[in-house]
C-alpha cells in the first residue's frame, strides 16, 4: 500500500514537472532556444494567484485566470524586448539573455514581494479521496494536478495538430525558411508560442504552490531546472515526451527516496537520466536525427 501511495505522490510531483516541461519543449521546438527564465515566470504566476486570493479576495478559479493573463502578457513582453532582437543570433546568446531575464525576474520579485516566504492557500478546496478504508489518501490537489496535466497535453496536441497556428508552429519547427516562403509569419508564430508557454507556466505555478504551499522569489528555480531535465529526458521538442519525461522524473525521485536513500535522491534521479540518455541518445520520444552529408 505504501508503494501505491509513493507512486501517486510521484505522479503528482511529476505532473507538475510535466506542465513546466511542456513550456520548455514548445519554445524549444519552435524557437530552438532554452528559455531558462521559464521557471521564474512560474514564480510570477504563483505570486499573482496569491495576491488575487489573499489581498483582493478573488475566487481561486478567477485567480488562476488572472495569473494566466499576467504571465501570458509577461511572456510576450519578455519575448519582444529580450529575445526578438536576437532572432538571428546564436542560440547560446539567447540562452544567456534568458538567464539575464531569470535574474531580473527573481530580483524584481524580491523587491516587490520581499524575501519573506508566504504560505499559499491551495486553490483546490474539496476533500481528499480516501481508498481502502483510509489506508490510501489521494489529496485533492494531486487529483487536480494530474487531471490538469492530462487536459493540457490533450489540448496542446490538438492545437498543434489541427489548428492553423499549430500547423504554422509545426512548419516553423520543421524548416524556418521554407515556412516563411509559404507565407507563415515566423515572428508571430514564435510570439504565440511564447504566450502559450507562459500561460502554461502560470498554471504550473499555481499548481506547484497549491501542492507545496510555499511562495518565495526563488521558488521556480529548482522546479525549472528539473523540468528542463524532464523535457530533455522525454525528447526535447516532443509534447508527449515532455509529459512522459516529467512524470517519470517525479516518480523516480519519490521512489528513489523511498527505497534507496533520501540523502542521495538527486544523485539517483540524475544517474537514471544519464543511463537512459546513453541508451536512447535523443530522449525517450525524441526524433532520431539523421544527418545529411
Amino acid at each position, binding site marked *: 500500500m505504501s508503494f501505491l501511495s509513493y507512486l501517486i505522490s510521484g505522479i503528482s510531483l511529476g505532473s507538475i514537472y510535466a506542465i513546466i516541461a511542456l513550456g520548455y519543449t514548445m519554445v524549444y521546438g519552435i524557437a530552438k532556444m532554452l528559455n531558462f527564465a521559464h521557471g521564474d515566470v512560474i514564480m510570477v504566476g504563483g505570486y499573482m494567484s496569491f495576491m488575487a486570493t489573499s489581498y483582493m479576495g478573488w475566487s481561486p478559479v478567477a485567480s488562476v485566470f488572472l495569473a494566466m493573463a499576467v504571465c501570458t502578457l509577461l511572456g510576450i513582453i519578455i519575448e519582444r524586448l529580450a529575445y526578438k532582437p536576437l532572432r538571428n543570433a546564436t542560440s547560446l546568446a539567447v540562452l544567456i539573455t534568458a538567464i539575464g*531575464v531569470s535574474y*531580473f525576474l527573481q530580483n524584481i520579485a524580491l523587491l516587490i514581494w520581499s524575501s519573506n516566504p508566504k504560505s499559499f492557500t491551495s486553490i483546490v478546496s474539496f476533500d481528499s479521496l480516501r481508498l481502502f478504508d483510509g489506508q490510501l489518501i489521494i489529496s485533492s490537489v494531486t487529483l487536480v494536478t494530474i487531471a490538469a496535466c492530462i487536459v493540457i497535453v490533450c489540448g496542446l496536441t490538438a492545437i498543434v495538430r489541427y489548428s492553423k497556428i499549430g500547423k504554422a508552429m509545426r512548419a516553423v519547427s520543421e524548416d524556418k525558411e521554407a515556412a516563411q516562403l509559404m507565407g507563415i509569419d515566423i515572428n508571430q508564430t514564435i510570439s504565440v508560442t511564447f504566450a502559450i508557454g507562459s500561460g502554461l507556466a502560470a498554471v504550473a505555478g499555481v499548481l506547484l504552490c497549491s501542492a507545496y504551499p510555499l511562495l518565495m522569489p526563488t521558488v521556480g528555480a529548482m522546479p525549472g531546472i528539473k523540468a528542463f531535465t524532464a523535457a530533455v529526458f522525454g525528447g*526535447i521538442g516532443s509534447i508527449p515526451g515532455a509529459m512522459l519525461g516529467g512524470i517519470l522524473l517525479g516518480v523516480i525521485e519519490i521512489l528513489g527516496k523511498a527505497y534507496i536513500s533520501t540523502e*542521495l535522491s538527486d544523485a539517483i534521479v540524475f544517474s537514471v537520466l544519464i543511463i537512459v540518455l546513453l541508451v536512447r541518445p535523443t530522449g525517450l520520444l525524441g526524433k532520431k536525427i539523421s544527418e545529411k552529408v
Partner: protein
Amino acid sequence: MKNFLKLKKTTRKNLVTYAMVILAFLAVWLLSAGGSISSAFRGQLVPICVYIVMAISLNLTVGILGELSLGHAGFMSLGAFTGVIVSISLQGSVSSDPLRLTIAMILGAVIAGIAGLVVGVPALRLRGDYLAIVTLAFGEIIKNIINTLYVGIGPNGFRISMVNAESLNLGENGTVIMNGPMGAVGIPKLATFTSGFILIMITLFIVLNLQNSRSGRAIMAVRDNRIAAESVGISVTRYKLMAFIISAALAGAAGALYALNFSTVVARKFDFNTSILILVFVVLGGMGNIRGSIIAATVLTVLPELLRAFNNYRMLLYAVILILVMLVSNNEQLKNMMKKFTGFFKIKRPPDLRGGTARE
C-alpha cells in the same frame, strides 16, 4: 614593430593576449605594492584569476570543441575538494607553501581530468542539448555526493565515510577535512595572486598552443563538420575526449586554487548557477575567443562588487546590464548604433591588420 607585423596572424594575436595578461599582472602588482588598490579589489584578485581559467577552459569545450557543457562547476568542485584534502594532508610533510599549492593544483587537475574521462567517454556520443543535460546531471550528482562525504586524517590513517564525522574513527588529534554539508573548514590560505597569474599563463599556453596545433585543427574540424572530419580520417572520439579532458583538468586546477583562497568551501558553491555563470563569461567574451573570455570573466566578476553602491537594486541592475550587453553585442541594428557611438574612440590601424581581423 615591423618584425612583429611579419609574424603569422595567429601568433601575433596570441602574443598580444600574453602581453595583455602580463601587463595587467604587472600593473596590479605595482599598484598593490604601492598600496593604492582597495582591499575589496585585492580580495578579488585570486577569484578573478580562477574565473579567467574557468572561462578559458570552458571555452575549449564550448567554443573550440563546440559542445555545450552545463556542469563545468562539477569539475571545479572535484579539483577544489581534492586540493583541500591534499594540502591539509601534506601540512606536516611538505613545509613549503608554494610547493604544497602546486601539488594540490596538479592533483586537483588529475582528479578532475579523470572525471572528465569518465563523463566524456559515454557523454560525448550524445549531441547538443542531450550532452548539455548529461553534464548538468554530472554536476548535480557531484554536488549531492560531496554533500554526504566525510573525509578525515588522523593516527589511524586516511578515512572516508558517508555516514557522519564520528564514524571516521580518526583517533586522537585527527582532523576532519570534509564534514558533509558543512564542507571543508580551516583550509590553509595558500593561494596568492602570483600563483593565480602563473595558472592563467599555463592555461593560456596549453589552450593557445592546442588551438594552433594539428590536434587543435582536428578539434575545430570536428566542430565545424563532424562527418567531413571523420571522412578524412580524423578520430572524432579521440579529439573530442582530448579537448574535454584538458578542459576538465584545467577547471580542476582552478578549483584547487579557489578553495585554497578561502578558509572554507562547501559543495553547494559549485552548483548549476556557477556553471551558468562561467558559461556567461564564455558567451559574452565570444565563442572560441580566448582574449574575450579573459576580459569578460574579469569584468563580470568585478561588476557586482562595483554595483554595491546601489544596495537593494544591485542584482537587478546586474541582470539589466547582462541583458543589454547581450542585446548590443548580438543584434545587428543595435551593434551599428553602438558603432556610431564608439567610432569616436576607434584606433587607426595599419590596413593589413584590419583586413586580417575583419575576416574572423
